C-alpha cells in the first residue's frame, strides 16, 4: 500500500451559515475597494501615471459636468429599462438572452412608423402609433421562442440568441430600403420624436423610473408575480397547484417583450430619432448582468445599473484622457465585475487553514 503522508490539506472550504446583513455589505464593499485598487495597479503598470489621476479621470467622466451627469443618468435609465425587461423571464428561469434583438425590433417598428407616417399623421396620434408598434413588435419577437419553449420545450437560450441576429439583419435591410442614397445611414427624424419633459433626457428617465416601481410591485405583490416565482422555482410544484405553466411562460415573455419594446421606443423615438444595427449597443447583454447582480430585484437594479453605467462612462473618459485604446474600459469593467461576483464565494463559504501546530492540538 502506498504510504500516505499524514498531513491535512493546506486549507479546505467550509460552507458558511447565514451571515448578518452588515457583514455581507462589508464583504461587498471590500470587494469593490480591492477591485478599484487592482484597476489602479493595472493602470499604473500600463501608463506609469499616478493612480490618483486614474480615479479623478473616472469620476470626471461620470460626474464632471452637468451634461455628463445627465448623460450617465440616461444611459443608466436605458440599461435599467432593458434589465427590467429580462427580469420577469429570468425569475421564471427562462433565459432570455434575446433582449438585444427584442429592443432592436421595437426600435425598428418605431422608426418605421416615424418614417412612413410623420408627414401624414398629427403628432399625438403618431406618438401613440409609435408606442403601440414598438411594444407589439418586441412582444412578437419575444413570444416566438416562448411558444416553442412552452409547446416543444426547445432551448430558449439558443433560440433567443439566434433571434438577435435576425433582428440585426432586419434593421440593416430596412435601412437599405429606406435610404435611397446608399449611404446606409438613416437621417434622424427629430420632428417625429417623442415630446420632451424638461431637457432631452427627462422623459426617458421618468418613464423608466415609473416602470421600475410598477415591475417591483408586479413581481412582489401580484398573483402573476407569484406564479412566475413558482414556475421558476419548480415547474412540478406549479403543475401540482394547478398553474397553467404554458400560459405563464407565454404571458411572462409577452411582458418581457413589451418592456423591451418600451426600451426600443425610448432609444429611437426619444433619443436618437434614427436607427442602425447597433442601436441597442450590446445593452441587451449587459442587462443580463445588471439583473443577475441585483438578484432579480428591480429596486436593487437601480444600484447595479448605476454601477455599470458609471463604469462605462468613467472608463471612456480614462481612455480619452490618456489616449488609450477603448480596451481599458473593458479591462476595468472586467476587473470590477470579477471582484463583485467573486466575493459571493466568500459570502457563502469560508476557508479554514491548516492549524500550524497540529501536535499541540491533539
Amino acid at each position, binding site marked *: 500500500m502506498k504510504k*500516505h503522508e499524514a498531513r491535512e*490539506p493546506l486549507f*479546505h472550504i467550509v460552507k458558511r*451559515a447565514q451571515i448578518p446583513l452588515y457583514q455581507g455589505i462589508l464583504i461587498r464593499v471590500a470587494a469593490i475597494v480591492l477591485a478599484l485598487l487592482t484597476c489602479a495597479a493595472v493602470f499604473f503598470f500600463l501608463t506609469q501615471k499616478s493612480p490618483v489621476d486614474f480615479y479623478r479621470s473616472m469620476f470626471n467622466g461620470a460626474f464632471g459636468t452637468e451634461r455628463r451627469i445627465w448623460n450617465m443618468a440616461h444611459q443608466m435609465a436605458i440599461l435599467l429599462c432593458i434589465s427590467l425587461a429580462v427580469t420577469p423571464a429570468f425569475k421564471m428561469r427562462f433565459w432570455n438572452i434575446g433582449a438585444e434583438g427584442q429592443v432592436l425590433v421595437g426600435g425598428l417598428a418605431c422608426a418605421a412608423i416615424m418614417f412612413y407616417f410623420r408627414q401624414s399623421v398629427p403628432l399625438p396620434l403618431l406618438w401613440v402609433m409609435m408606442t403601440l408598434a414598438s411594444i407589439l413588435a418586441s412582444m412578437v419577437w419575444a413570444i416566438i421562442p416562448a411558444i416553442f419553449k412552452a409547446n416543444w420545450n426547445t432551448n430558449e437560450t439558443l433560440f433567443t440568441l439566434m433571434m438577435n441576429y435576425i433582428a440585426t439583419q432586419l434593421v440593416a435591410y430596412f435601412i437599405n430600403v429606406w435610404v435611397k442614397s446608399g449611404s446606409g445611414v438613416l437621417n434622424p427624424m427629430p420632428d417625429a420624436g417623442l415630446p420632451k419633459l424638461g431637457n432631452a433626457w427627462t422623459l426617458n428617465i421618468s418613464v423608466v423610473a415609473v416602470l421600475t416601481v410598477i415591475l417591483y410591485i408586479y413581481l412582489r405583490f401580484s398573483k*402573476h408575480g407569484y406564479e412566475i*416565482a413558482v414556475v421558476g422555482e419548480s415547474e412540478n*410544484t406549479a*403543475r*401540482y397547484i394547478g398553474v397553467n405553466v404554458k400560459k405563464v411562460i407565454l404571458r411572462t415573455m409577452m411582458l418581457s417583450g413589451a418592456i423591451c419594446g418600451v426600451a426600443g421606443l425610448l432609444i429611437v423615438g426619444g433619443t436618437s430619432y434614427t436607427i442602425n444595427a447597433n442601436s441597442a449597443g450590446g445593452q441587451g447583454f449587459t442587462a443580463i448582468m445588471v439583473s443577475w447582480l441585483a438578484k432579480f430585484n428591480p429596486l436593487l437594479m437601480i444600484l447595479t445599473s448605476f454601477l455599470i453605467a458609471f463604469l462605462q462612462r468613467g472608463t471612456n473618459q480614462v481612455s480619452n484622457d490618456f489616449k488609450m485604446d477603448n480596451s481599458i474600459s473593458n479591462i476595468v469593467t472586467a476587473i470590477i465585475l470579477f471582484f463583485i461576483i467573486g466575493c459571493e464565494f466568500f459570502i457563502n463559504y469560508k476557508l479554514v487553514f491548516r492549524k500550524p501546530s497540529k501536535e499541540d492540538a491533539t
Partner: protein
Amino acid sequence: MQKQTAIELKGVTKTFGTTVANKNVSLTVNKGEILSVLGENGSGKTTLMNMIAGIYFPDEGQIFINGEEAVIRSPKDAFAYKIGMIHQHFKLVDVLSAAENIILGLRGEGRYNLNKAAQKIKQISEQYGFEINPKKKIYAMSVSEKQTVEIIKVLYRGADILILDEPTAVLTPQETQKLFDVLRRMRDDGKAIVIITHKLHEVLSLSDKVAVLRKGEYIGTIETREANEAILTEMMVGKKITLNIDRLDPVSPEDRLIVSDLECVNRDGVKVLDHIDFTARSGEILGIAGIAGSGQRELLEAIAGLQHIDAGQIIYHDPKTGKEENLRDKTPLQIRDLGVRLSFVPEDRLGMGLVGNMDIVDNMMLRSYRKGKGVFLQRKPPKTLAEKIIDELEVVTPGPSTPVRRLSGGNVQKVLVGREIAASPTVLMAAYPVRGLDINSSYLIYHLLNQQKQKGVAVIFVGEDLDVLLALCDRILVIGSGHVTGLVDARHTTKEEIGLLMTKTEVKHHEEA
C-alpha cells in the same frame, strides 16, 4: 480472541455552517465484525461515513486505519486504504453492463479485458454468494441487482472495509435476507463491515455491535446481544418512547374514490400503470405497498390530475351532494373547481409539494393564492395559517418568514402535511410521508393520518416500511411493476405475504379482484 481494529475514529468533528453534523465522535470497527451505525435521520451517520470514504474532510479529529493514522482526502485515497462505500444512491452508468461498470476507472494491467474481469467477478460472486450476470446492462436491472453490482465493484477493488449506507431501504424483505447472508459471509471472511441504518430489527438481526449517534453526537457502542429495541430507541431519541401505532376501527366506511381499469403509458411507451382497480373508502387508511418505482408515484399523480391517463376511470363520490364525478383528464384546477377536496402530500416535498426558496407563508399560499378578488395577493390569511401550523404541529423554525429549505426534514413535512390537512380534505393522499423523518415526527404524522381517518377522510398512504403499513393501515394494496398484485386485510396478513406479492410479476387481474 482479541480482534484487530480496522477503523478507529478519534474526536472527529464536522460542521456545515452552524450545523454540527458530527461532534467529537470516537468509535472503533474491528475486522471480522459487522457494526451498525444507528441514528435518526439527520443524526450525522452518513456524514461520518463519508469522512471515512474520503468525500468530506473532518474539521477536527483523527482517523486510524489498521492502527495507523490516515489522511483520506478523496475517494481515491479511501481505495488505497481498501475502504469501499456503497452509497444510498447508486453511482452506476446505466447504458454499460455490470462488468463494464465494475472495471470503470481502474488503472493498470488488463483493465480493458472484459473476459478476465468477468472471471474475477464470477469468482467473487461464488465466494460470497452473489447472483449476477456480468453482461447484463444496468438499465435492465432491478434495484437489488444494481446494489449487488455496487458491492462487487468495491470488492473487485480489493476493499477490506465496506460501508453500506441504508442498504435495505429499497429492498423487499426477501432481498434483505439475501443481502444479510452475503454480508455475514464477508464478515466471516475477515472483512470489517459498517452498515448505516435506522431500522432496529435489522440492527438486531445482523450486527455484532451497534454504535448510536444522536444529533451528531456519539452516544455509545453496545454489543448487539445486550441490546433490544427499547434500549436502542432510548439511545437514539434520548428518552423512552412507546413505539405503538394506534389503529382504530373504521367508522361507517363508504366508497369515496373508485379507480377502475386505470392505464398510463409514459414517454418511453412503457405501461407504468396497467389495469389498476381499487376503491378508497372514507374513514379508512388504504396502504399502498410495492418496490420503489412500481407505479406508486404515477398512480397518485394520475388521481391528482398530474399524469396523462390512457384508459380507465377515476370516480369520486361527493359525500355532500352524493354526485359522482369522473376525475379523468381533469387538471388539478378543474378537480378543485368541481368541489373535490383532494389533498396530496407528494413524495418530492421540496420539488413538488413546496418551494424550498420560499418562506412558510408563501408556501401556505400555494394552495390558496387565487382566493380573493383583484390582481394582488393576500398575505394575511396564509400568514395566519402558517402561524397556526407552526404552533399546533410544533414546527421548529425561527419564524413564518424562514425559507422552508432551511428547515429540517421533519419540519418541512409538518409544513406540507399541515397545509394539506388545513384544506379539510375528503381524500388525502400521502406518498412516503415519513421518509427521512425522525421518530417523533413520524409518529406525529401517523397520528395526523389517524385523525383524518376518524374525521371520515379517505386516506391513501404509500409507504415503504412494511411494519408501519401493517400497523397503521386498514387494507393494503400491493403493486408490482404497474399491476395490482394483491389486496390484503392489514389486520390479518404478514410481512412475508406482502413481500411475496411485491415481487410477483405474473398477474391474472380481474379474476383476482
